[in-house]
Each structure stands twice: as structure tokens, then as C-alpha cells.
């Protein structure tokens, strides 16, 4: 199991996404997953080996490293990407469930006029309406929450997005306040800012997609209420005409029965 398999899972959702959703998936896999795998992992590869403290005291380096980096940047990004991609699986499960139900009805002979065979059901593009709209919207909402939470955790853990080249550490067993030097701080800062910018772009895309979906629903509802407003006038006219017709036929009958036999 690796990023490629996650890409296959999420890529399947691509067919049922909006255009903004498709852009989001591309940004996630090209600007975040790929950068993480081909570049960022190399930069952080030797992070503990090359973390050096100005002391010979055994254990001081371990303790200081653990204090300044409770969770490595790389691991936090990997977890962020996994959590942010997971809501799309909800949509994939919903579509799979909808297809399963349609196939069951087809086997019972209910939807034969809509689909030719089971393959047709599998190929059909499911529209984002009804309950799927709610699933899709909640998945976008959760994505936004996860992105924002991870960005906040990052900011909180590392006091900002910039890595200093020296840190002062005085935790036991360090004998006094020692200088500890991080390996490649500038390169790490560059990648951190890149990944944070990509996160911000993804968040903006998600917000735009949410607004688009809400506007679509409002627009559809207003169209429906407009057609309903035209329709009741027509039925009112019809029922009044029917009443008049009844009155005419009743009076006609009375006129007939009123003839002296």
C-alpha cells in the first residue's frame, strides 16, 4: 500500500466530482504527494543523524531533538494528506452503494427501460443530487476542517513555519544550556512554506467548491418555485371552468326534466 494505491482510490472518485474537485485532486497529487515523496523525504532523511548539539554528554542530543521535534514535519504532512484524502472515500462508498442498489433493482426487473445491462449501470456517471449532494458537501466540509486543523497544529508545534539554524537546549541530562544545530534549515523552511502554500490553495479550492454546490442548489430551488408559481394559476383556471361546465350541464338537465311529459 503506498501513495499510488491511494491515487487509484481517489482517482475513481474523480469521475463523479465537479470540475473544481478535479482540480483539487490534481493539486493534491502533483504539488503535495509527489513533492513529499521525491523531494521532501530526501531533505528530512538525515534529520536526526545530522542534528548536532555542542556537548559530549550522551543522551543530551536525543532529549533535545525529541523536545524540539515531537513529530517530524514529514510525518505530519503524510498524516495530513491521508486525512484530507479520506473524505473522498465516503463519496466513493456512496456511489458504490447506489450502483449496488440499482443493480439489485435491475436484477429484479425494475429498471429495464433505463439501462441495457449491468455494465451500463457501472458506466453511468452519477449526478451530484439528492443524498449524494449531502455526502459530497459533508466530505468537502471535513476536508476543510482537516486542512485547517493540521495547519494550526503545525503552527502551534513549531512556533511558526520557519526553522532556525540554532536552538538552545537545557533539558536534563544536558549539563548546561547547549547549542543544538539543525541540518539544512533553509531548505527545510523553503519546503515547509511550499507545502503550506499548497495547503492554502487546496483549502481555497474546497471553499470555492462548497460555494459552487450551495449556489447550484439555491438556483435549482428558485427555478422549481418559479415553475410552481406558474402552474397553480393554470389549475385554478381549469377548476373554475369545470365548475361552470357542471352548472351548465345541471341547468340543462333540469330544463329537460322540466318539460311536461
Amino acid at each position: 500500500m503506498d501513495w499510488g494505491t491511494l491515487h487509484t482510490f481517489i482517482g475513481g472518485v474523480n469521475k463523479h466530482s465537479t470540475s473544481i474537485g478535479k482540480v483539487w485532486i490534481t493539486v493534491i497529487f502533483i504539488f503535495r504527494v509527489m513533492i513529499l515523496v521525491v523531494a521532501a523525504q530526501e531533505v528530512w532523511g538525515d534529520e536526526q543523524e545530522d542534528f548536532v548539539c555542542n556537548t559530549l554528554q550522551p543522551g543530551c542530543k536525543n532529549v533535545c531533538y525529541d523536545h524540539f521535534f515531537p513529530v517530524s514535519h514529514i510525518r505530519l504532512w503524510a498524516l495530513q494528506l491521508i486525512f484530507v484524502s479520506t473524505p473522498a472515500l465516503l463519496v466513493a462508498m456512496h456511489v458504490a452503494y447506489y450502483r449496488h442498489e440499482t443493480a439489485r433493482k435491475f436484477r429484479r426487473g425494475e429498471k429495464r427501460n433505463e439501462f441495457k445491462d449491468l455494465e451500463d449501470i457501472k458506466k453511468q456517471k452519477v449526478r451530484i443530487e439528492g443524498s449524494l449532494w449531502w455526502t459530497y458537501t459533508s466530505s468537502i466540509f471535513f476536508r476543510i476542517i482537516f486542512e485547517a486543523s493540521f495547519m494550526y497544529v503545525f503552527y502551534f508545534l513549531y512556533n511558526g513555519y520557519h526553522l532556525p539554524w540554532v536552538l538552545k537546549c537545557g533539558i536534563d541530562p544536558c549539563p548546561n544550556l547547549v547549542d543544538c544545530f539543525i541540518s539544512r534549515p533553509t531548505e527545510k523552511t523553503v519546503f515547509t512554506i511550499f507545502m503550506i502554500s499548497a495547503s492554502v490553495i487546496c483549502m481555497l479550492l474546497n471553499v470555492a467548491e462548497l460555494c459552487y454546490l450551495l449556489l447550484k442548489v439555491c438556483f435549482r430551488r428558485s427555478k422549481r418555485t418559479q415553475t410552481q408559481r406558474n402552474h397553480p394559476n393554470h389549475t385554478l383556471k381549469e377548476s373554475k371552468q369545470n365548475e361552470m361546465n357542471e352548472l351548465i350541464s345541471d341547468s340543462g338537465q333540469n330544463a329537460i326534466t322540466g318539460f311536461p311529459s
Partner: protein
Amino acid sequence: MSWMFLRDLLTGVNKYSTGIGRIWLAVVFVFRLLVYMVAAEHVWKDEQKEFECNVKQPGCENVCFDHFFPISQVRLWALQLIMVSMPSLLVVLHVAYHEGREKRHRKSQYVSPGMMDGDLWYTYLISLIVKTGFEIGFLVLFYKLYDGFGVPYLMKCDLKPCPNTVDCFISKPTEKTIFILFLVIISCLCIVLNFIELSFLNTICNPVW
């Protein structure tokens, strides 16, 4: 042979699972297998190299490391993943056996892949019970071996050839604790899913009864 093999095997199980079984599979793939491969493995990569004891006596570090970590947490995690996925293969083997019989007798045994009839219901039930047993067993083993689910930053060691009680420092204890807690939470979620599936299976009618 790698984790891809396990992934391919388990993908075949998906067809014959209930809805909750499929959710369980998704949780195992995404939150356990993927997290293990892209993150957890790297955290424990240099665990012995960076394990340092406050002593120059040769052999002391080796002995202390071996005493505190009889089996590495990350290896236990991998074993747990393998053992927990294996019972699902019983279902695959059962279906393959029946399909072989169908070909020989030229008649269909199962109405559709999703239907749980006759002995497949029993095989699925047994696989669920064994899966849950393994999950709980490994969690208990984890707890007993490492005295809880936390990793301390410092451990005291006085085994031979260490001359006295020395301080030994573990590398990345906080990160390791976070990943172990993550593993425990996802294991508990999988146990809950298994229990829900067990109660759901009881509501599917069993033709033999």
C-alpha cells in the same frame, strides 16, 4: 513479496464482504497499512543507532536495548496487520473451493456474489471471530510487553556488563508514542466494526437453520 501482495489478496475479499466489512477493509488499507508504510516505518528506522546509554562500557547499550525492546513496536505492528488480515482469506478460499465445485457440477451455488448463504455464512462468522481475537490479543501483548502504550524518553538499566545503573535514552519517544496511540485507536475502531458486523450477521437469515 511485499505489502502489495497483501493488498491484492484483500481486494479480492471485498466482493464477498458485507457493507461493514468493506468499511473495515477501507480502514485497514488507509489508516493502518498506508500509515505504516509512509510514516511509521521511518520513525523506527534508526532506533538502535540512536539508542544511547550514558556509559562507555562496550556491550552495555546492546544488552539494554535488547532488554527494553525484545521485539520492536513497529515489527509487532506489522505482525498484527498480517494476522488480522489472514482470516479474511478463509472467505476467499471458501468461495474459490465452491467455484471449483460449480465448474465440475455445472450448476450455480451462489445466487450472486453478495449473498451470504449456507456455509459461507459460517466461514464469514468464524473469520470475524478470529479477526477480533487477534486484534484484542495483540493489543494485550503490546500493553504487557511495553508496560502501557507510552514510550519514555529515559530508562534505567543495570544489566551486566553495565557497571552500575545507567541512564539510557530512546530516540524520538514522543513521535513513537503518538504513532502507537494512533495504532491503538484504529485497532479499537476495527474491533468495534467487527462487533457491529457480528450483530449484523445474526440478522441475515441462515437457510440451514
